[in-house]
């Protein structure tokens, strides 16, 4: 049975406060529908993942685009990556400011530029006709509240991360069998200025290769980098493991070797997919064969028709 096309999104691995769990789940479902609509219409996996992630960047509930966490200075610096599995093309931005959709900027980097992109500067964005937005438009009350709380003595930054919705991302396989991934984040709460996490680092925040599959990661950025989690999972798939096994092996290794938690969405070129996490929760949704699958807590797997309006 044909499993293509397929799209899987995540809205961050961590500990979602109960009062925010509904918006977390509805947001990933909405993003999955938006991305899947593109695939159903014959669009590319790259277009689909960018659309799904941009959707979540625009949603103030997530730590990406609007709703991003604040750095130690109370400002927003965002990272994003896209990767296309056919030619291994990739585009990334790091520590970028005042842009509503870093994932779209990363896409432009891949398409327009031979080089990797500006770190922190918006000159490229302007050249591409992407307008700068006022920094305040990206800041939510929730992020400002968490930033203030984290300035208090004795606050534990890593634990505070896990209490906030995280990075967003998506992987997809289109009808042609091309895979793609996209990941976007505001990074770590109260991070040092200029801190770059796993998200824009190819092999860590994401990786896509038509011969193997695609992964988008979320969790504690520094530990994801130490094990180059996305690439590690794909190495396991190259060795013959299923999307689920490979994802679990990568996450287990990250936990045992460097004591870090996270989550991934993974897809194989034939359309097999997995949404796995070692943290308490990860909001995720997958669209395939006109069905929408989703969950938040470990073991959860709800299904409904993709066309169901709720």
């Amino acid at each position, binding site marked *: 049975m044909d499993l293509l096309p397929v799209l899987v999104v995540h809205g961050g691995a961590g500990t979602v406060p109960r009062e925010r769990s509904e918006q977390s789940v509805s947001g990933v479902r909405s993003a999955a529908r938006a991305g899947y609509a593109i695939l159903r219409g014959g669009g590319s996996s790259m277009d689909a993942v960018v659309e799904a992630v941009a959707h979540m960047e625009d949603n103030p509930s997530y730590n990406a685009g609007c709703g991003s966490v604040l750095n130690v200075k109370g400002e927003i610096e965002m990272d994003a990556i896209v990767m296309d599995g056919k030619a*291994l093309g990739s585009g990334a931005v790091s520590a970028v400011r005042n842009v509503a959709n870093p994932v779209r900027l990363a896409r432009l980097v891949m398409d327009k530029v031979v*080089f*990797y*992109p500006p770190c*922190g*500067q918006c000159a490229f964005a302007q050249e591409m006709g992407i307008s700068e937005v006022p920094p305040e438009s990206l800041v939510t009350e929730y992020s400002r509240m968490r930033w203030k709380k984290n300035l208090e003595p004795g606050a534990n930054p890593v634990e505070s991360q896990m209490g906030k919705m995280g990075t967003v991302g998506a992987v997809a396989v289109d009808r042609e069998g091309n895979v793609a991934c996209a990941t976007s984040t505001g990074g770590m709460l109260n991070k040092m200025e200029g801190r770059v996490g796993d998200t824009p680092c190819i*092999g*860590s925040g994401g990786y896509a290769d038509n011969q193997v599959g695609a992964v988008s990661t979320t969790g504690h950025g520094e530990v994801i980098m130490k094990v180059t989690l996305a*690439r590690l999972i794909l190495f396991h798939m190259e060795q013959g493991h299923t999307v689920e096994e490979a994802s679990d092996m990568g996450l287990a290794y990250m936990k045992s070797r*460097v004591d870090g938690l996270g989550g991934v969405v993974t897809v194989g070129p034939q359309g097999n997919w997995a949404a796995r996490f070692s943290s308490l929760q990860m909001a995720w949704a997958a669209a395939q064969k006109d069905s929408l699958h989703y969950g938040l807590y470990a073991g959860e797997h709800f299904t409904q028709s993709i066309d169901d309006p709720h």
Partner: protein
Amino acid sequence: MPAVIVVHGGAWAIPNNLAQDSVNGVKAAAREGMSVLKRGGNAVDAVEGAVRTLENNCVFNAGHGAALNTRGEVELDAIIMDGRTLASGAVSCVKNIANPVMEKARAVMEKTVHVMLTGQGANMFAESIGMNTVPTEMLVTQNERKEWEKHKNYVTGVMEDFNSQWAHDTVGAVAVDSAGNVACATSTGGIRNKMVGRVGDSPIIGCGGYADNSSGAVSCTGHGESILKVTLARLILSHIEQGKSVAEASRVSLKYMGDRVQGAGGAISVSPSGQWAATFTTERMAWAAVHNYTLWYGLDPDENLKEPFTY
């Protein structure tokens, strides 16, 4: 357990007028790295020491002698990684600081909870720990200023640039100490006339370098975008994990990079048991290694010269 150090000074078509200096430079760096190990330093100390020596040498494109971006400024990237804990420190797009790798990247690794800092934030961190900034002119050599002027006057794409032998080079080192710990370090000024703020492969963990006590350490050089696309350092180590020798793993990975994304480059690798290799698909790569009281070095393909190393 015998200690090993391997260094490289960049994989590209090194012109004859730079050849002797490049070889002398990598030999000096390898000697320095091994001296650190002999004095009781660990693998991280050794790669830091070796790369510092390379950075301070104007013939290489790192620190002094680094290529200028489109604004005529010096921007530097670097990474260091400790195979024992997988701890890593990287900086990208840092300006006006000499020796970014060694002090800065290591400081990111040891003095922050982060793995990578970029741009202004990276500069501010350096200042906060008392690292001096130096004026751009101090880091800009006459040769680089001339090259920059030349390139400003006509546009060349990266591939053309690379193939026409005006490619960037990068410096790096890998080591295994007597305790069996491995480490890597890579530093670069990036491609000449690159777009302001471009981040290449060097500071990206798994691409410019990677170190893991369970498999080995790698430092890469060559066409940055290609190295990124195949996550070259991590790829080489995955082949070692699958049972290939260090040399075979490097060869297979560089071949894959050439076939899949038409990129050329080089890599130095070392395993925890002391196996090492210096492999490249570019015309030349200046490299040197010290192992068992022998200093090995080369420049052209299949060149494997040696002389005794006395400490």
